[in-house]
């Protein structure tokens, strides 16, 4: 069954041109699911990068912008889309010219799995 899940997420990866990585982690950055193309984008998947997102969401909410659920970080060569699906964090890494709207649209296609994956974290 896990092969089917990986195949499904790999299919999502192929759907969006320029998308390199889909990763589901807990809020500490511990990976639960990871599919990627052969691209060196480890900077966005380091254990310290993802907890920073949760803290940034937390602290940025105090600036008066309200509670946000997605942070999009654009770099010179990459873009990182992180979604707050507590207790999970969804991370997408794509090329700088990848269609961000397409990445955001994947949220609904992934949600069917998240409820089940959440159980693995909440039981821990």
């Amino acid at each position, binding site marked *: *069954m*896990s092969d*089917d*899940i990986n*195949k*499904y997420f790999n*299919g999502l990866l192929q759907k969006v041109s320029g998308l390199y990585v889909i990763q589901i982690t*807990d*809020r*500490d*950055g*511990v*990976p*639960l*699911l990871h599919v990627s193309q052969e691209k060196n984008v480890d900077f966005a998947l380091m*254990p*310290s990068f993802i*907890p*920073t997102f*949760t*803290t*940034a*969401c*937390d*602290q940025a*909410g*105090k*600036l*008066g*912008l*309200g*509670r*946000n659920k997605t942070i999009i970080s654009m770099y010179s060569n990459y873009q990182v889309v992180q979604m*707050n699906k*507590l207790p999970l964090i969804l991370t997408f890494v794509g090329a700088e010219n990848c269609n961000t709207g397409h990445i955001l649209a994947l949220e609904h*296609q992934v949600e*069917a*799995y998240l409820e*089940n*994956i959440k*159980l*693995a*974290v909440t*039981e*821990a």
Partner: protein
Amino acid sequence: MEYVRSIWDCLVSICSCLHCTEDISRTAQTETERTHLLANDQQNQSPALRRTNSDLNNDCSQSLPKKDDQDALSRLVQDTAINMINVGAMDSHHLEHQEYTDKIKLYTQRLHQQWNNIQHPGNVPKGLLKDMPNHQFYVYKPVYSEDTSQMKKFIGKCHIGVTDIKIEHKEAVAVVVPFRIP
């Protein structure tokens, strides 16, 4: 004197954050933008605040006789910690390597157990009669020769109709396409 200075520091912090102070009981119940995403709230506090809090607890244990004052003070300190934007907390959420690998193993084990219960969205039955509830009933029914001949007749008429379609050119079409003209 140390105690008075601690109180003064605390009050200054509170005054600077008065505009964004919220009811602590409400924030504790509902998940708002002030609710910490990370579970360990102690780490979300700045080192200065943590120090102030611990100093207060040490200092106040002897000099503060009233428990209500202590509670009110700790509530104010907690309120301030919630409302204060703390950039320094960014570096305080690193897991130890051993804990990290242990968690990966634990999650992998649990996910393997759960994958079998997950309904794969791509596993929708594909093919003919997929939306028919009792398709086996219809599959096993005999096909009558009258029905077959009627279908053949219908398909033959359709074929004749398609072959009879002709295009009549009513206007002279003069389309000149320059192609590889030097």
